[in-house]
């Protein structure tokens, strides 16, 4: 029995649950806001949340967030730490998920106080469009120089927290950050507009499905 409805991802219609975060000097990260996400091959007809250019099925696996935990549901051949799984399995910090012949994703939940998790491709594959990591955004996204942040920003002097507030994304930072022409520091992030501060500069873009 599958715990994930196969067509859920593209049935939602409103796709603001997939965002690309471009961070100057750091990288590009995909933020996924849904509680269930699909992983599959990157091709025009397959609408999945994490499209990977790899030798995998159109919809290869799904990951569901349940409370503080993440459960992977294999829709095709999936291994966790090289152990094949046949049914839903719990993901733990540091697990490497192998899809098909060798697409490897590492799952991390770096911060004990945040449920959000990060998936990184550790094989020679890439998502389409490319990104440096996929954040499964539960409550908050922690960014900063230390390794226990979801997105490690080595050159930053301070931390930044992006968190969900209703249907909006808000941010918390020690130094004020600004957007467009506003002289008021940002609290609620506008999509498609660069957020800039003393040392921080990033932009959230809506990702359209391939």
């Amino acid at each position, binding site marked *: 029995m599958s715990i994930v409805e196969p067509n859920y991802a593209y049935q939602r219609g409103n796709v603001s649950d997939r965002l690309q975060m471009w961070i100057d000097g750091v990288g590009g990260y995909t933020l996924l806001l849904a509680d269930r996400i699909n992983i599959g091959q990157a091709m025009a007809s397959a609408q999945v949340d994490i499209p990977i250019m790899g030798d995998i099925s159109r919809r290869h696996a799904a990951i569901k967030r349940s409370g503080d935990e993440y459960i992977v549901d294999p829709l095709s051949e999936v291994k966790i730490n090289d152990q094949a799984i046949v049914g839903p399995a719990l993901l733990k910090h540091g697990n490497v998920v192998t899809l098909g012949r060798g697409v490897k994703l*590492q799952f991390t939940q770096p911060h*004990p106080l945040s449920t959000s998790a990060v998936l*990184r491709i550790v094989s*020679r594959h890439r998502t389409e*469009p490319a990104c440096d990591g996929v954040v499964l955004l539960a409550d908050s996204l922690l960014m900063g120089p230390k390794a226990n942040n979801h997105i490690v920003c080595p050159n930053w002097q301070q931390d930044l927290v992006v968190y969900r507030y209703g249907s909006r994304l808000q941010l918390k930072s020690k130094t004020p950050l600004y957007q467009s022409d506003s002289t008021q520091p940002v609290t609620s992030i506008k999509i498609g507009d660069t957020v800039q501060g003393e040392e921080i500069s990033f932009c959230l873009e809506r990702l359209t499905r391939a």
Partner: protein
Amino acid sequence: MNQSAATIPSENPGDDEVGPAKQAKPKESPMRFTYKTGSTPLDGYTIKRGVGAGGFGEVYYATTDSGKEVALKHIQRNLEIEMRGAKHCLNLKHPHLVSLYDIRYDNEGEGWIVMEYVHGDSLQDVIERHPGGLPVQDALSWFKAIASAVNYLHDHGIVHRDLKPGNIFNDQGTVKIGDYGLSKFISVSRRSGQTESVGTFHYMAPEIGKGRYGREIDVYALGIILFEMLTGRVPFEGESSQEIIMKHLTAAPDLGDLGEPYRSVVAAALEKDPDKRTSSAEEMLQQLGLQESDGFVSAVVASEPEPASQPAPKQPQSEVKAKVGYIEPPAPKSSLDDEPIAQTVSSITQKFSDWWNHDNTSLPIKVIVLGAIAFGVVSYLPLIFPLVFVGGVFYATYLLVRQVIRLFQDGPQGGNAPARTTGSSDRYHPEAMKSKYIASENAAWQPRRKDRERAALSARSMHQRIKELIGSLIASGIVAVLVSFVLMLISVGDEAIQLTSLVTLGPAFIFFTGLTVAASWSVLIISKRWEDQGGDQVARRLVMAMLGIVVGLVAWFGPLLLVPGNASGTALSSTWFNVASHGSMGGLLMFFGLVFLVPRWWKLADPLRSTWLSIWTTGVYVAWAAILTTFWPYLQPWAIMVVGTMAATIQLSAPWFSQERRDQQRRRYEQEMKETTAGESS
């Protein structure tokens, strides 16, 4: 992203510990990028994010309208040179080189280099994750790829010149080397970004300071990189760029951690003398028992004649030198070789001895000449002796001053003094580049205003500095006379203006003034040497104390000289001050030694001191002298006065830059730095 699972476990919570390489990195300044996400400065390319900034400008990650990912390098400085360099490399192809796609200009005429975007970690990141060194097999596979690409560049007549782990990437399993074909003196600027750090100096071959940029510098960098991959640290570490450069020049690397054959391979690659170093990247590969990697199609290529896989022909030395713009350092000259007075004297002596030894010169004439000379010397002895003595003293002083000036000019011999900006070609003189380099680096390190101002000082021309020095020497003479006279007036009243005072006060006045001039000249000359850099205070104090001892000697011998035959010096005792009871020589030496040891005398002559003449500072010096005289009471009060006079004289005569002038100089210097950071393009 890394291909091998071995490099994964860096994400553990609390795993934010870093290796030595990271600790050596300066706190990097925030990065701000000109272009935001979504901007399209070039037709067809949409900028996604800033990646980093180098001396040449900013680098962005962008995609084309059809989705091709590229890196866009915005060339903001040295446009012509950079573009020429990039154009030269535009069609180079190697699996381990970052490809250049195109060179474009935007609507504002600014240049962009469109190139391959490399995903993944740099070698620097990888090394930081392995503080104890990479596994040997990993290190060798990295090295094989790096050396192959470097060899390819060398085969095409290009020297990379900036090989370092920050420029080498693992793009999904393929090693890629970037940043070739760019002029290299730019990779350190005050604008610090991802690809710059003090690390740049860790890979710099010693001969770069001499302006020699042959293939050998890449081999040297390869040696350092190999060492770093195997051990997790660089062989020459240091707190400052100067320290690191000094180690590259002089220190022998400690290769104890390496096993064979790596130890001897690295040792041969780190040879200080480029001519003794391993000659090519390929040779290094052979020493390690590795084959050059030609990428994925090596089997096909191997069947064809491949110039890259043959030993590079040894080029004649001179041609190599000509190619790389090698500049022979001038042979060190003895101080007398080109000194005009010595030359004149020696040429007269030569002429005389020629005449003397000439066959035509008859014996009687020689006898008459000898007799005349002997008679003259004996009868005018009282006159000749002081003349020779005075002449000798003057000549010695002259030689000393000359020597000091030469020290300024011969930067390399004299240490890291700045050098002239004259070069044989239109290129910047490599030494000048070096000092600018260091200065700019300093500015990057401690961007405090004062440090930047000081960095600006070092950029002044030699000529200007000598002019300043001579000016202040003359000024100090005049000031010393005036200040001493004022002091005398104050302490003796109108007696000083009477004619009789010439006899009673004259010698004392001369002594007082002479001592002041001697002290202030030496402080001025030494401080001039120190003014463009901060330095070790202890060492400076010791030098100053030494100088104080010399001043003490002068103070002791002074009265003897001024009044020969009257050592008790009655003439020097007056109502003004009593030098007569000047006590033991030891006391004087101790007194002046301590006077010069404790306060920082060179600060008085610093052009960046806060005020031209600080009454407060002078007061401190006087107070210090007063405290000291309690141990040698017989020095009161004249010694206190003389110290005060010295302090005031030095301040009054040393150049002082107003804040306005400092800003102006600093701005001009920083502007120059931006414009002239390019040495040349390859």
